[in-house]
């Protein structure tokens, strides 16, 4: 009888599917703005799905999902500077994406076995030079600044930065923010720090980097964002649109229309809605109009009650469970 020998593959260092910890890294989703530009006026303004604006002065840059991307991608996140802004000592302008603790436990930060991890992304800017980014924990008492270089203007380039995770500090391990990733578009000297080392003071960027907001109409674009365990930037892990949408809906969901409900035995008007995806935390609900009261809001859904005649309803609701 002939024997078939099965060749055994190496067991270590094979990091194949499900390696990208970043959600919406290909910038496919923009549930809030649908591709329209938005100019953030407040810190923590949510822009494209899972990407937020960090700033201490309003209206210095706009953010937009655009159809301009490197080969193999469809969309990118585009920042456009609104003016030649003077960056003050403690000023900061950033794009950030927080990763949930359940996702980042694999990095083992805060322990002696903290992993090396690598961020990679495609970037394109009207400016060239040294640019900066950073990581922090949620309390901000562990901070690491990094830099990358854009060599040619208006040209897509792929960058990767590998670091060793923090071996101390407190890192959220459940539904809080397990790791914040920042790309700095401007940071004053008072909120800069040296790149390449973990520190215990919360800063905004690395010293010696380019301020995008300091040049009127300067642009900076990013897509193909991937963060993975290991010291190598592997090819970007593309996920389907539907899968990426569901991942985003853990943090933000909208309903494009009106929801209306019926009557209970006592004549009170009720409706109960189940969220499309269970939320990270009980979401904040915003809406166009409502009649009349939200009840029983939790990570799975909510109810609307109206205690008089007529249907209970809520129009254009949005559900925010962002980090």
């Amino acid at each position, binding site marked *: 009888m002939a024997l078939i020998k099965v060749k055994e593959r190496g067991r270590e260092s094979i990091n194949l599917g499900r390696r990208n910890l970043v959600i919406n890294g290909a910038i496919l989703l923009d549930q809030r703005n649908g591709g329209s530009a938005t100019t953030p006026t407040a810190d923590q303004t949510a822009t494209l799905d899972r990407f937020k604006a960090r700033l201490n002065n309003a209206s210095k840059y706009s953010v937009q999902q655009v159809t301009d991307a490197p080969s193999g991608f469809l969309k990118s996140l585009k920042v456009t500077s609104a003016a030649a802004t003077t960056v003050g000592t403690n000023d900061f302008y950033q794009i950030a994406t927080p990763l949930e603790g359940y996702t980042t436990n694999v990095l083992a930060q805060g322990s002696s076995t903290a992993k090396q991890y690598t961020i990679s992304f495609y970037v394109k800017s009207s400016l060239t030079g040294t640019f900066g980014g950073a990581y922090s924990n949620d309390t901000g008492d562990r901070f690491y600044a990094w830099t990358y270089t854009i060599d040619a203007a208006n040209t897509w380039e792929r960058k990767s930065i590998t670091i060793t995770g923090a071996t101390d500090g407190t890192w959220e391990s459940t*539904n809080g923010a397990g790791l914040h990733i920042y790309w700095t578009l401007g940071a004053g000297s008072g909120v800069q720090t040296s790149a390449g080392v973990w520190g215990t003071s919360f800063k905004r960027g690395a010293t010696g980097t380019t301020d995008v907001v300091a040049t009127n109409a300067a642009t900076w674009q990013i897509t193909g964002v991937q963060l993975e365990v290991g010291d190598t930037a592997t090819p970007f892990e593309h996920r389907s649109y539907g899968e990426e949408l569901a991942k985003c809906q853990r943090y933000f969901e909208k309903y494009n229309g009106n929801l209306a409900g019926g009557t209970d035995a006592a004549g009170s008007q009720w409706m109960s809605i189940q969220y499309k995806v269970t939320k990270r935390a009980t979401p904040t609900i915003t809406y166009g109009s409502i009649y009349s009261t939200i009840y029983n809001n939790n990570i799975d859904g909510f109810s609307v009650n109206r205690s008089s005649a007529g249907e209970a309803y809520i129009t254009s609701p949005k559900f925010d469970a*962002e980090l």
Partner: protein
Amino acid sequence: MENMNITTAQYSLDREGNNSCIQATIDGQEMSVPLDPANRHYAEILKQVEAGTLTIADAD
């Protein structure tokens, strides 16, 4: 690390008369904020209340 502009905050009651959420105006937008410390809006409300810069009004 949040920095929200909260201009109004008032409890809403459930059918049993318990506080169920907070109707708030944050960065100019009205919203229904759940009483969940993991919710970023509620966490900021608590922080501003503790700092003495915000008071949550009782339900009507």
